């Protein structure tokens, strides 16, 4: 595949790693929980594989798996207290957790402080990343269409009603949070073996904002939304050649605001298509004509 992509391979790989991180945010978001902790779990995964492969001479595959497991374990442990919070307080609590993890990493001895590590063995190829994304996509699609997926959407719509219907909301949320940690840890571990360097400042607020943008613009309705948005926006960003400039951030910030106002549930949300369809129908029937629609006609 590397002959085919040429110099774009690295860019694409970076985008695919971000896609895994975005899916990690999406996993909890589909249950209506805005967790900002993924970036912290990503750091855990990255450092786990770095320390194991560099200092304990573990094989790379072992390191990556350990990174994913570590991300999941940390998420499962911290999920128990943090998930007691809801709504905006969960967003804040998880942001604080993420920041605390990264500050901790920047100041511990064994993580080499703010300097981080270089010379991590490079091993990740586009095929590996695509494989991870396909497997994740299959898992998400199976759960999306099953009882589990419907239960998760029920929790998003109304947590109390979901509980009343016999859904163990606490268990669901904890499992989703742990799974989100696994994906984030995996993204961190793969990134470490993709770029070969790791330091605490790469897990800053900027990365979170980028990942949040992709996920929110993609929407909470279906996993393909955030995934597609990451790839499309990632390539657009690269082609515009604005990487790291102020203009890029200004465009990103404006995009976040615009999407939140125009489509608060993202572009993979059914309600928006219903509204657009209604708008087109109204146009077709012409101005001045009162269109009477029955509520039954709007069921999507």
């Amino acid at each position, binding site marked *: 595949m590397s002959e085919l992509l040429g110099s774009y391979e690295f860019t694409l790989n970076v985008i695919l790693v971000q896609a895994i991180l975005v899916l990690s945010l999406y996993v909890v978001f589909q249950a209506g929980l805005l967790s900002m902790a993924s970036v912290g779990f990503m750091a855990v995964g990255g450092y786990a594989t770095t320390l194991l492969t560099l200092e304990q001479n573990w094989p790379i595959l072992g390191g990556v798996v350990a990174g994913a497991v570590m991300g999941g374990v940390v998420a499962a442990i911290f999920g128990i207290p943090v998930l007691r919070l809801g709504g905006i307080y969960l967003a804040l609590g998880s942001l604080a957790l993420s920041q605390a993890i990264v500050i901790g990493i920047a*100041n511990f001895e064994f993580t080499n402080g703010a300097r981080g590590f270089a010379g991590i063995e490079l091993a990740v190829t586009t095929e590996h990343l695509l494989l991870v994304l396909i497997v994740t996509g299959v898992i998400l699609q199976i759960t999306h269409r099953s009882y589990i997926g419907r239960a998760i959407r029920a929790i998003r719509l109304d947590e109390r009603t979901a509980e009343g219907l016999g859904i163990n909301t606490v268990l669901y949320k904890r499992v989703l949070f742990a799974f989100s940690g696994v994906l984030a840890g995996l993204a961190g571990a793969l990134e470490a073996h993709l770029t070969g360097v790791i330091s605490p400042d790469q897990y800053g607020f900027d990365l979170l904002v980028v990942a949040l943008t992709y996920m929110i613009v993609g929407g909470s309705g279906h996993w393909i939304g955030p995934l597609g948005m990451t790839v499309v926006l990632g390539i657009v960003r690269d082609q515009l050649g604005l990487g790291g400039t102020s203009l890029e951030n200004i465009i990103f910030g*404006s995009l*976040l605001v615009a999407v939140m106002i125009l489509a608060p549930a993202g572009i993979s949300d059914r309600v928006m298509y219903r509204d657009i369809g209604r708008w087109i129908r109204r146009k077709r029937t012409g101005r001045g004509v009162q269109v009477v629609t029955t509520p039954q006609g709007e069921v999507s």
Partner: protein
Amino acid sequence: MEQFIQQTINGLSVGSVFALLGLGVTMVWGVLGVLNFAHAQILTWGAFSTWFALDADIPVLPAIAIGVLVGVLISVALNSTVIAALRKRNAPEFAFVVATIGVALVMEEVLREVTDAETRPFPRDGFPTGAVTIGSISIPGLQVVVLIVSVLVMIALAYWLNRTKGGRAVRTVAYNRETAELLGINSKRVYTIAFAISGALAAIGGVFVSVDSAAISYSTGDPLLLTAFAVMILGGMGSPKGAMVGGLVLGIAQVYATVYVSSVFRQAVAMLIILAVLLVRPQGLFGEPQSARV
């Protein structure tokens, strides 16, 4: 013992700025339930306006007034455009978080372009510089002023919120907007007032932070955002008294952490306080319990 007292006073000095920040967030988050991630950028823009005014040889007090005016204008503009549009669409509460993160990003980048990403020295002329000395303990004059200002702001806000018609209107809107409208309260005006106060406090806080560190850059406000949220959470939502006490406690905690644990720990104090308070006592020190929070 003497060192301990001196450190406590240093902590109170740091904390009084935090209290001002917390009071600003209290108005829009604690009272109206809008979590404004652009608060730190309003702070920076306000402080930078003061810097530009001082640079143009405008005396200190009018310069601060210009900064405050800019803070108020930005805050009110944010409310009447983005926040109003979201409110009109009944957007979920996380939509406010994400949209204001977007606004913060734009504001920060614009300021970075305008100032060429430079850190500029903030002139201290005209601000109180001396120190008040009691025995062997010295208190910098600036900190005394900051402490007095934040206490006055706290008293004024607490009085306004609890004892005046306007303040009661704000609390009614916070409690239930529709009921408030039925009672004849203009909820749009209430939002404008709350955001104006918040913007003014952000700008004052920004000026004090910049004078204290004698420097200002486009990213001055960044680390203060989570600090302000920590103050708010610690003190309790919508309680000016809580924001005051929360700010002072956080300031003292940071100074103690620096002196007695390690300077490394200082950065983490705000995060740990957010986590610990949310988990142990979600209503904060002076807040009223709300079932919706947990």
